């Protein structure tokens, strides 16, 4: 979790959805060495990415807490996809943007080396979180003797073999609940050099291969096995589609799609799909609506699988993002407003804030269990968690500004780890 590089004016222009008029002319033509992909020009930082990544971080934190009033504000209650999709897509986008530029400028080896350094940081962060988890679960195991839950206490059985468990955790095969995103991200980042290399050659073919792998995962039921049994809760072989799609958008795909994104047909299809998804979601909470759903449709649709990134989830995310880029232009003045500043700050330090969020969720569970569990306490924990995330993001920014001034100017903005962001 080191703060590797300073933030400077490295940027992303031409994001998913930049309309043609907004695309700045590619200034440094000489930079575009490879004809296959185009990197956007240097300009201002793309705040929309930070904003939505910050939002995803907050939502993931809230979703990791036991359900409470704030849970009703998270997007998973209104449709198929949730904050994880936003997170992985933006991570793919920013990682491709930062390390793709590094690959064009400095070559494959340098870029791959930088990616691996980032992977190491994420890995260390994961192990750090695991340590905290271990402390929490050990405490619960020794203090919890409610006869209502003798069966659920079976989950503590792994504590009987700490040697095996810890080694399996280091191998990323033992992953407690709520600690699934970082291992997924580690695997995706490990594949990034290959993805970028292939994108440099032919972006569309790369995206097609990614879709093919996704299809094969579904067809042949491919998965990553976990310890002591089971499988990874987020199958990297399926979720890579979203990551590669993000990368493809960053490396010029978004610009090529801009006409599709600007068309009203896309808009209405997206709206119709989101409304339909909302209705389906509603039937989960109000089963009376259920019999208005055709049985055949239900049988085809369920289960909507998160592990393998169900097509319905993926398309739901596409519809959401199509509408977002349509109605939230990159010059929207609100992006500079102080009200969105906390979200953007959190989004700019995603790995640190993600880990903090997982930790705060553990701590929140702990307080609810040990102190009191009323709804007021719930709300208080959620709100103070978000305030802490904001505060820490601000402190990290402050550190970086100080580091700037104390003369770390030689550092290269290209490898900006935060832009390539974590978790």
């Amino acid at each position, binding site marked *: 979790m080191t703060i590797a590089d300073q933030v400077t004016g490295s940027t992303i222009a031409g994001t998913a959805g930049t309309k043609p008029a907004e695309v700045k002319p590619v200034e440094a033509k000489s930079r575009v060495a490879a004809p296959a992909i185009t990197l956007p020009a240097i300009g201002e930082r793309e705040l929309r990415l930070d904003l939505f990544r910050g939002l995803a971080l907050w939502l993931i934190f809230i979703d*990791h807490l*036991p*359900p409470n*009033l704030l849970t*009703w*504000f998270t997007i998973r*209650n*209104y449709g198929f996809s949730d904050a994880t999709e936003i997170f992985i897509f933006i991570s793919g986008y920013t990682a491709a943007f930062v390390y793709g530029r590094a690959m064009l400028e400095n070559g494959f080896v340098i870029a791959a080396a930088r990616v691996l350094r980032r992977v190491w940081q994420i890995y260390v962060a994961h192990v750090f979180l695991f340590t905290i988890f271990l402390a*929490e*679960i050990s405490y*619960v195991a020794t*203090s*919890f*003797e*409610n*006869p*209502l*839950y*003798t*069966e*659920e*206490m*079976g*989950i503590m059985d792994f504590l009987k073999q700490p040697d095996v468990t810890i080694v399996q955790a280091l191998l990323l095969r033992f992953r*407690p*609940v*709520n600690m699934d995103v970082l291992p997924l991200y580690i695997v995706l980042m490990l594949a990034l050099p290959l993805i970028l290399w292939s994108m440099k050659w032919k972006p569309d073919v790369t995206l097609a291969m990614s879709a093919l792998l996704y299809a094969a995962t579904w067809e042949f*039921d491919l*998965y990553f096995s*976990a310890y*002591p*049994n*089971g*499988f990874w*809760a987020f199958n990297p072989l399926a979720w890579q589609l979203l990551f590669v799609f993000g990368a493809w958008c960053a490396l010029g795909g978004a610009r090529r799609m801009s006409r599709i994104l600007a068309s009203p047909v896309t808009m209405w299809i997206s709206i119709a799909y989101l409304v339909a998804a909302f209705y389906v979601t509603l039937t989960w*909470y*109000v*089963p*009376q609506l*259920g*019999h208005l759903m055709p049985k055949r449709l*239900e*049988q085809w649709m*369920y*289960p*909507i*699988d*998160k*592990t393998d990134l169900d097509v319905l989830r993926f398309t739901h995310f596409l519809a959401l993002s199509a509408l977002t880029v349509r109605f939230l232009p990159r010059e929207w003045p609100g992006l500079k407003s102080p009200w969105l500043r906390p979200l953007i700050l959190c989004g700019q330090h995603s790995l640190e804030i993600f880990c903090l969020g997982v930790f705060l*969720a*553990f701590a929140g*569970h702990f307080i*609810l*269990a*040990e102190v009191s*569990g*009323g*709804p007021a306490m719930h709300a208080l924990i959620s709100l103070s968690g978000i305030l802490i995330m904001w505060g820490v993001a601000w402190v990290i920014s402050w550190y970086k500004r100080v580091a700037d001034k104390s003369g770390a100017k030689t550092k290269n903005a290209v490898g900006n780890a935060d832009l390539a962001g974590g978790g």
Partner: protein
Amino acid sequence: MKAKVLLSLILLCGYLAAPSARADDAAPAATPAVPAACELPPYLLTTESQLHKVADAVTSGKPLEILVVGSRSTTIPFSEDSSYPARMQAILKEKLPPSETVHVSVEIQSKKTAEEAAGTFVKLMEAKTPTLVIWQTGTVDAIRSIDPDDFRGAVTDGVAALQNAGADVVLMNLQYSPRTESMISAPPYLDNMRVVAQEHDIPLFDRFAIMRQWNDQGQFDLFSPSRGPELAKQVHDCIGRALAQFVLDAAHLGPAQQQN
């Protein structure tokens, strides 16, 4: 989501209003009131699927033999009589005419996954010939993080075996256990049980949502690390009541067949 909160409030109000309306036309007989702690919005006890065999048994006056296939959370250690199968039997006896024989037996499949439990069903059904099997499963699978697809397959097979043996089936899902929520991932197993119930048109008793409702509404503090059996007894009592009501409703046994 305001709408949902609002909606549940409306449903709750409707529910609260309903018993008073019913009380008006009911005889002043000593109706055992549902304890306030057990109250639930009606949608949690609504099912589209029917229990035909239970209905036939009761209307034709045959004995109602119910088998609960469960795990350790079916019972309370050292208080069998307070566990939900025993409570359900008591409530059913209260609600059904005195002439109706109701017997609930329990088969504990401790630490068995759905697949392991389903493997025993053919023999089990030969030994006992219940009218209704209430199959409570999912917890062990969630603890061991069994592949949800495999889990769904196992539940499907188990339900088919029970139905082939001529019994009505009710599925019951996991307990809501907030303290282990950060360690056990229940949602995939809840979802898959809902799918199997839908596919086979059998009632799903949503124990998870029901217990969560009680916890959220403050009727029970399920976070409590209490060592005593009191909380467990109360929760099982409420589950037994809810389950009895659920079975009667799913069998469409109206007040005519019910005592009260």
